[in-house]
């Protein structure tokens, strides 16, 4: 469960196929803030402790700091580094390592997307003979997933340009053709203002790219007031229209994200804030979002960034969860999934994870499967 306590959805603003739903905080969180240098300049080089220089410009890597007195700079997120499609997992692990006291770095989201699955499933803990040496040594990395920059999503740039930011706005939920593309929540309205233009450089999944491309312009949800006959009645009707929209958004439009079963993994804790990553249930034909979330001591969301997975990505995620559940033992996992080791191995290959299996083992399975299958004339 993602707990959006303290955040209310305000009326959506539509532009073509894009629907943007602002999230407003009545009380901003002040002890978790964007680092001041984010306001000054965008491009900064980050030197990691062991002199690996990660220079450049990463769209969504966030550097977070935390203070308890609120006077010192409370940094939270920046755009650093360079768009590197492929990145070694060891390096990404270093990226979240504590660089200086009171500071946490986030993964860049595009790396997060590749790395999230991998980070969660560290690879086979037992070197069963089927797995390739690379898989045992490096886990799942490297692997690339397709993602589109927001600038490639049709109409998103215009939609964000003409979007009117609400007072106290701390978040935005982006829909493309009414498919939930991603949610962003920050602790403070000033942070949101600073980050709003960067949303167009966010990463969005293939699904979003296509639904924005093929969808008709989405209609506005216009308010209906009935016919009250007094001014007080009219005021009440207006207030009701607002609450109804908030309820509708949480229970219908964003239900897939807010109510979906997510597996959380805690990454770091700083004072009352906890940084976690989450994975979806990987059920097919449902919303599957991966993301990073910072929650406070009561579990309410202070920061949130999500990415919507495509069907193919969901399928891969599903296979990996099953394997993990059985300690990466092919036979037992296959038994639970109603198939045999050869069948599962071929499914892994078809899902694009063939490199995890030893080539000779895979060839053997393929041969066995070919002999088994009835010959087709």
């Amino acid at each position, binding site marked *: 469960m993602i707990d959006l306590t303290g955040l209310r959805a305000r009326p959506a603003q539509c532009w073509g196929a894009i629907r943007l739903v602002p999230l407003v905080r009545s009380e901003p969180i002040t002890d978790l803030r964007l680092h001041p240098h984010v306001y000054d300049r965008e491009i900064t080089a980050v030197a990691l402790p062991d002199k690996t220089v990660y220079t450049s410009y990463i769209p969504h890597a966030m550097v977070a700091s935390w203070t308890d007195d609120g006077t010192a700079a409370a940094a939270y997120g920046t755009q650093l580094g360079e768009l590197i499609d492929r990145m070694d997992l060891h390096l990404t692990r270093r990226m979240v390592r504590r660089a200086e006291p009171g500071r946490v770095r986030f993964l860049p989201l595009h790396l997060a997307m590749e790395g999230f699955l991998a980070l969660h499933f560290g690879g086979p803990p037992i070197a069963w003979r089927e797995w390739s040496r690379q898989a045992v040594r490096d886990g799942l990395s490297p692997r690339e997933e397709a993602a589109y920059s927001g600038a490639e999503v049709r109409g998103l740039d215009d939609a964000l340009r003409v979007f*009117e930011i609400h007072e106290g706005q701390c978040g935005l939920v982006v829909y493309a053709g009414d498919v939930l593309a991603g949610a962003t929540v920050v602790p403070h309205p000033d942070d949101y203002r600073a980050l709003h233009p960067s949303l167009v450089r966010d990463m969005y999944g293939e699904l979003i790219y296509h639904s924005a491309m093929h969808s008709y312009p989405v209609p506005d949800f216009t308010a209906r007031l009935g016919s009250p006959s007094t001014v007080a009645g009219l005021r009440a009707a207006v207030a009701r229209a607002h609450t109804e929209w908030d309820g509708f958004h949480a229970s219908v439009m964003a239900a897939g994200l807010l109510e979906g079963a997510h597996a959380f993994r805690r990454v770091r804790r700083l004072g009352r804030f906890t940084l976690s990553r989450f994975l979806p249930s990987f059920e097919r034909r449902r919303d599957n979002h991966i993301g990073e979330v910072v929650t406070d001591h009561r579990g309410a969301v202070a920061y949130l960034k999500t990415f919507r997975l495509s069907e193919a990505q969901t399928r891969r995620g599903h296979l990996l969860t099953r394997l993990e559940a059985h300690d990466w033992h092919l036979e037992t996992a296959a038994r639970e999934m109603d198939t045999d080791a050869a069948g599962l191995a071929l499914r892994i290959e078809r899902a694009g994870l063939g490199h995890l299996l030893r080539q000779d083992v895979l060839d053997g399975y393929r041969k066995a499967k070919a002999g088994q299958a009835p010959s087709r004339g």
Partner: protein
Amino acid sequence: MNDVIACEDVLLFVNAAITSTGQREFRSTAGEQRLSLDFLHRYIMGNYREVYSAALALEINDHNAALIARNLLADGATEREGRLIARRLRTMAPQRVYALFTELRRAGVNNRRTRAVIGEWLGERPDLAFDAVKYRRALKEAVRHAHLRLPGELGDFLFAPRRRARLDAPLLDAWRRAHHETRAVYELPYTVAEGFAARHRIPRERFLAAIAPRMTRLERLRSGSAPDLAAMPLVRLASYALALPHEERVSRRAELHAALRASAVRAAGGRAGSWGRVTAVLDDSFSSYGSGHKRRRPLAVALGCHYLLRELAGQYRAMWLSHRGDPLLVRPAGATPLGERLLDALETRPDLLVVVSDGWDNAPPGLAAEVLRVWRERIDPSAGVVHLNPVYDAGGFDVRRLSPETPTAGIRDAESLPALVELARFATGRAGYASLLGYLGERTAER
């Protein structure tokens, strides 16, 4: 039924012709604006030719007036239309008229009426020698296009500048001398002098200091020197005030406020204080920033209207969408919760409610229309509401409306507000086409 459609068509054209300048707006590009406007012009000229030419007599902007003149002349204008065009050209800025003549030449429009219009306009120019220096190329083309013969040395100046060793008119001679004499540069109009200054490599600062007396009022304003606030019209004054940084607006508050008030008093004239209780809902949402072309234009229009309504009304209240306090410190930010603000305004039970907004009601969408509907149907059917919209919506071929029952009119200059409130009553279809034509006839006859 036909009457209603005709009435709507005419009004949407007038609204478009008042608001659109073919420049970029907050929600549409310059290209979209031009394409949409061009279609509208063709449609109206084809279907309501009489109204199309009569629009020249209304407060439409120069961009549209030039478009109408061009289209009419290209399509064989009648004598009446010729007169309307000539009358309108007299009030237009000369550079716009020269641009129109250049465009006519480019389009190959060279009928007798066109030549007559060009000849008549040039004949009435107070100082053709000045035009010959400042708009040299345009004047030359216009003269050539209309087969005119210029008096005296002007013809030689334009077409054979080397024929005479010296010219009698001082300005013409200054232009000749400016080719080799630095001092003569400062006798020329600013735009012409600028080219010579570059040629003589005069340092920019020295040039600007010396040329200042030759600048027009707007050139001086653009060059950053302190303008003469008292002479400026309302919206330009509002634009100037809104362009100042926040601290300067605070420190010069009294001066700006007094200038805006004086301008408003001037515009209100004899109507001051005659409108009874007026409440205004003024849009200061982010979209009132306009665009890079029309910076803060919608907000400036709202601020101008605010000052004018203050003078017109007996009892006045203003409500900005999100801004509180001093209206001079307003800035374009936030969403557009028009519905709620309209409800607040209606509760003050005004005689007239004026809404100045681009009509993109988005928090939530459609709430303003619902509030107006419920108010009219259930609470007070007599409430007078007028919506003035400074932004042309290219996709809708009209300014965006709040609701079908609420009269909406496009607005460009705050000074035209009283006339627009009058025009807006045609927009709900309650006043007929005949009375609209009558109104237009009156407007074309007067002056």
